Every structure is written in structure tokens, then in C-alpha cells.
């Protein structure tokens, strides 16, 4: 199929880059690695007919946790190339992403991850936190973890008419000290296109070896009578299977 060149500063390219950003976080995110897209360099659109629309994009990747001196400078991780396929037949089907990033992008955070993991496993009590008032810098890894976990939901909920970012973490609670640490998060997502705030409850697990996994996700609609066709409420095994199914295609 011919690839039609797109203006990289226009919204079709930026929305596709946002999806790729979420994909990268689901694969490589951790309490010490949280990625953002910044600036699309090149973009193309390929009409895949019945299959849907495929975006070919090149964008700069930033890492958002290792701000050195201030919260202003994001750590440049180089260029990524991605193919983002939005399904035409079923808009509820999450987009399919393939992505490769330039060499330096996989940061070695194993030391910090192992250190945090051991501290949590050996702690006498379970951790929790909320966002009221000042956020202790020591708690930052948990905010990053929430951001990375949000990407699982945002990847799944994205389509050509959304631009999703995590807006806010209300609170988190550590649920277990098992090998797979489990946390419950109350988070708010923001969709730039509809300007809506979407409230989600997540149950996630994390370990340095297993990475981040979202086990359960529940959307809390603010208006019980409002219908939102593109959002689903899923729990437990069904959610995990859905997400596993996506992974096989990429």
C-alpha cells in the first residue's frame, strides 16, 4: 500500500506517537523508567483497507524520571520508529504497535529496581500514599509506576480520536509483599480530544524480573447514565487475556 506523507506537527501524527509511547511503557517501563514522546520527525499514513489505518512514525523519546536538576529537562533517549495500526472494523480493538528505538534507549535500572524491590519485600508494613499536599521525593518511584501502569490502559483505550495522558494519581496501596508485589492505584487519565477526565482503578504487579503488569482495571464513570461506547469495564482474567492477545500480534 502506498504511504501518504503526513505533516509531523499535525494531530494524526502526534496521536499515533502517543500510542507508541504507551506501548513502550508497557514493554520497558518501571518505577525508574517512564517514557514520553516528544516531537514527531516524520510521519506517513498507509490505508490498510479492511484492516484499518497504519501510521509510520519517527519520533524522539524522552525519559521522564531522571530529571537531573529541575523538572524542566527531560532525558533524551534518541529516535524511535513505530508502526501503529488502528483497526477499522472494531474501534474497540486496541491499536497494534511495532516499535524499535535507537541503541541508547534501554536504560540500565536494575540496581535501583533491585534495591527498591528488596526494601519492599523486607519491610514490616505495606506501603501506601496519596497525592494530598507535597509528594515526598522518596515516593517518586511509585508515581512513575502508576504512570507506567496507566499506559497499559491508555494503550488499550486509544484510537485515532483520542490523545491520552495520565493526569493524576489519587492514591496507591500496596496489597502484598509476595514475589510479585501487588499495588492498587486510583488514577485519573486525561483525554485531550474530549477534554474528559477518566477515573480508573488498577490492580498491578511489579518485580524487577517480571516487569509491570496490570491485572485488573475498572473504569468509574462519573455519570451512571452516560454511555461511553469506546470504554469498557473489565476485571480479572478477562483483562489479562485481552492484553496477552494484543501482545501476540506485535
Amino acid at each position, binding site marked *: 500500500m502506498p504511504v501518504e506523507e503526513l*505533516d509531523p*506537527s*499535525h*494531530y494524526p501524527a*502526534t496521536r499515533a506517537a*502517543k500510542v507508541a509511547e504507551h506501548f513502550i511503557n508497557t514493554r520497558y517501563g518501571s518505577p525508574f523508567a517512564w517514557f*514520553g514522546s*516528544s*516531537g514527531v520527525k516524520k510521519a506517513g499514513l498507509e490505508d490498510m483497507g479492511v484492516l484499518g489505518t497504519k501510521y509510520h512514525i519517527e519520533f524522539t523519546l524522552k525519559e*521522564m524520571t531522571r530529571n537531573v536538576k*529541575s*523538572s*524542566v529537562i*527531560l532525558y533524551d533517549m534518541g529516535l524511535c520508529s513505530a508502526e501503529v495500526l488502528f483497526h477499522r472494523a472494531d474501534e474497540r480493538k486496541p491499536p497494534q504497535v511495532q516499535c524499535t528505538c535507537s541503541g541508547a534507549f534501554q536504560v540500565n535500572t536494575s540496581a535501583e529496581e533491585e534495591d527498591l524491590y528488596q526494601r519492599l519485600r523486607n519491610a514490616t508494613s505495606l506501603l501506601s500514599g496519596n*497525592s*494530598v499536599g507535597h509528594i515526598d521525593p522518596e515516593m517518586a518511584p511509585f508515581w512513575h509506576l502508576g504512570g507506567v501502569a496507566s499506559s497499559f490502559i491508555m494503550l488499550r483505550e486509544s484510537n485515532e480520536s483520542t490523545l491520552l*495522558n*495520565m*493526569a*493524576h494519581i*489519587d492514591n496507591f496501596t500496596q496489597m502484598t509483599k509476595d514475589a510479585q508485589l501487588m499495588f492498587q492505584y486510583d488514577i*485519573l487519565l*486525561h483525554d*485531550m*480530544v*474530549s*477534554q*474528559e*477526565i477518566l477515573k480508573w482503578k488498577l490492580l498491578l504487579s511489579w518485580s524487577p524480573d517480571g516487569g509491570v503488569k496490570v491485572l485488573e482495571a475498572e473504569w468509574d464513570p*462519573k*455519570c451512571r447514565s*452516560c454511555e461511553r461506547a469506546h470504554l469498557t469495564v473489565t476485571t480479572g482474567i478477562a483483562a489479562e487475556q485481552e492484553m496477552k492477545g494484543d501482545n501476540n500480534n506485535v
Partner: protein
Amino acid sequence: MKWCHVRDVLDFNRHRGFFIDGAGDGVKFSMFSSAGRALLLLLLLLLDCAADRSTERNYEYTKYHPMPEISAWMQQMVEENPGLVSSEVYGTTYERRDIMFLKIGVDQDGVQKKAIWMDCGIHAREWIAPAFCQWFVKEMLLRYKTDKKVGEMLNNLDFYVTPVLNVDGYMYTWINESTRLWRKSRSSPPESCSCPGVDLNRNFYANWGMIGVSRNCCDNTYCGAKALSEPEARAVTEFVGNRSGEILCYLTIHSAGQLLLMPYGHPQIWAPNYDELMRVGQAAVRAMGSVHGMEYRVGTSPDLLYPNSGSSRDWARLIGIPFSYTFELRDKGQFGHKLPEDQIQPACEEAFEGARVIITYVHDKAFHNRTDIGAAGMAAALWTSMLASCLTTMLLV
């Protein structure tokens, strides 16, 4: 800069316990010869000017302020800058609060001058916007005497600056964490629906209700039961509408996304001066990027973000105001509307440079018939602002 009045010097030093008029303890003025008294007075004047108590220097511009503090700041700006700053209430919100602007410009004996309009905080949760309006006022006042161009612009133009347009919404976002991300006004819902508030930036009489809106009152882009259903939108429409002949430029400040949006929000409608708006906009985003390296993009809303209708920017252009832009300030999703306070200064610094490019162009086009935006022009602007900062810093020491 403000004039240091002798009376203020005497009052200030009296409060310090240093009496000059001979009453009470302390140095007796009468002890000095007339030359000595003159010298002493001059010394006190210089000391007082150095220990500047003016609000424009001492207010915390790098913190977010609740509405009462912003209102108090506005009052102080007027009191401390007679002949340069005045204020006016030009409308009332749904919850019966005043909507007020500061009018910045040298008073030319009440003559109606050409003007530039800036409003901030039309969307309640976009806190960096009101912070920028306050920053903008501060910068213009500080540069009035030190920056030749700013001085010229304040002589020739008036700047109408509304720090918070959606006062009800802004105050609502200050209640607690659960209200922090409110966007709309706080008006009561229509009969058939149950959620309060209207998206003020979909409520203006500009292709109202056509695209990029929701008819569901619970949604964040609800455009209202009809155009100008909201008193906040009516207030702007009435004031600006009555002065559309004098107003050269309409700037409305939002967050987030790091964008400079031009008219129109409808994908099939183009402004007649699209090329000029784009040229000036590109110079503005270049200037913004040059401050801290942050990427800003310029274009129409349907190109960069999404189609929409009923926006204040579109309405301003439609009634003939030639330059109309929406600023979407930091960031691009890391913190979104909850931009940390340590980013207020850099965000405002880069926004100021962008706004300055636009207002300088608009001013020079109107008063010097000049429409070039050369690199030289930008370099000169940057140099003047650096010089102004150096001088201001020296004076503060």
C-alpha cells in the same frame, strides 16, 4: 519601576523608628544644615528605592495563588501605579462574582487608545494561565522604564489583561483534590440534564455548536443550551465587541500542549490573513523555543489538535480583530494541567517572549507601518530584555 515619593520615604523611615521630623527619639532633622538635609534626604530616597516594597517586585509570581490573593494583587497594582494601571469590573459570573481586568498603559488624558486584549483562566484547571497573566503584567511594568520598545508600546497602546476570566471555576478548583481538574463554568444544568457547568470556550458566537462540541451537559466540551448562555462569555463579548475597532490583537491563554493556535476551529474555514498569522506565529514559537529549548507548534486547531467551534479566539477574529491566538502553555503530558510550581518561571518566561513577538509586530504594523520580522528584530528584542533583566537585578541588590 516606580517613582519613590518623598512622603513614602518619610513614612517608611518613621515606621522603622528613624524619625526625621524632629519628634520622638532619633536623629533630629533640624540638627543638619540645609545642604546636609538635602543630602540626607537624597540618601534616604536612594536607600528606599533600593529596598523596593512595590508589589510588582515582591509578590510571589512563582507560586499559584487563590482568587482572593489575585484580587488583592490587582488592587495593589492599581494603587502603586497611578497613571499606568487601572482596573474595571466588566462582568459578573454565574455565582455573582466580579470579572475584572487590569488596564495597563500610559493614561493619555482619557483618550481612547488602540489596545491589546489578553485573558487567562477561561478553563478553571489551567492554573499556569492566570499565573502567566500576572507574570505578564509584572514584566510590562518592570520594563516600562528600561525597555524602549515596551515603553513605546505602553504609550501608544492599552493592554487589557484579565488574570482570571472563569472566576467561579477557578475558585472551585481550589477546594480540594477532587475539584482540582474542573474545566467549565459553574452554572446550573438545564432541566433535562444533571451536571453543572459549560465549556466557556465553546460558548461564544462563532459557528456555535457546529463541531468539536458535546450537547451533553455532563461533558467537558458542553457548549451550553445556546450561544452566550454564560455570563462570562457575554462579559467578554460585550466589552471587546464594543471596542472591536480599537482592539488590534486578542490573546487567550490556556494550558496544556505547547501550542499556538490560530483561527479558525472549523476545518473548512480559513482566516483571510492566514499567511500573516502563520508568519507571526512561527516567529513567536521560535522565540518561545529559544528561551528554554521547549518545542511549541503553531497552526490552526483542526490541524494541530482537534476541530472546535464557539471559541473566543474564533469569535474575536470573526468580528474583525486581525490577530487572534490561543496560547497553550506547558506541558505535553508529563504533568498536564497540574504543572509544578518550579516550572512557573520558565513557562512564563518563554510565553512572555512569544507574546512579545506578537504584540510588537501588531504595534509596529499599526504605528510604524512595519511588517518585517527579521532575525535582527528578534535579536534586538532578546538583547533589550537581557539588559532589562540585568538592570532590574542590579537595582534589587
